């Protein structure tokens, strides 16, 4: 007689638990900060994110493998490309418009621009390092 029962793989449950812990860590981190509890936000993040890392470290099953690594690398590549194109269009356009007094650049954009610059310098340095070692 055929069984219709489908057992749940332990690795699926643990992957789900890992994802839930990470998601909850970020939600609580931002949520508690927004409502004015920054230290509680940091505490919750450390506990939950640490729990997620601990889950991976202590698991007897393989939770992530080469496919997850490939997905991570592709997502990271797409993210860099997306922000690269956005910055390549947005910042020069803003500078031109500001030069001709069409818009006034908000002050909060300056640290974002600086952070993105540092981000891309880091990317270039890491890529050069990888090329050197290949």
């Amino acid at each position, binding site marked *: 007689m055929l069984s219709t029962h489908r057992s749940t793989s332990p690795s699926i449950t643990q992957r789900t638990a890992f994802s839930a812990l990470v998601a909850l860590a970020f939600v609580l981190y931002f949520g508690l900060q927004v409502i004015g509890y920054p230290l509680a936000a940091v505490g919750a993040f450390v506990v939950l994110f640490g729990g997620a890392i601990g889950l991976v470290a202590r698991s007897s099953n393989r939770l992530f*493998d080469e496919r997850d690594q490939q997905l991570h690398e592709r997502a990271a590549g797409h993210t860099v490309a997306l922000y690269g194109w956005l910055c390549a269009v947005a910042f020069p356009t803003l500078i031109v418009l500001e030069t001709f007094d069409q818009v006034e650049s908000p002050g909060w954009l300056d640290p974002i621009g600086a952070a993105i610059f540092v981000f891309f310098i880091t990317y270039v340095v890491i890529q050069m390092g990888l090329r050197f070692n290949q």
Partner: protein
Amino acid sequence: MENDLPTRREHAGQSQAELAAAVGVTRQTINAIERGRYDPSLELAFALADHYGCRIEDIFEPTD
């Protein structure tokens, strides 16, 4: 790439989870390979071929 992994696995009486554990990946990766949605690394292709005692090209075939 096309592959006959489902046939070989079922012929061996293995579940996806058992094959995954044998070659050191997750069940989701075996499922993705069988559905043609993921091309394994050379290392994993060798591990699969070694597991079934055949050559890589016996399992995988490039598509046009």
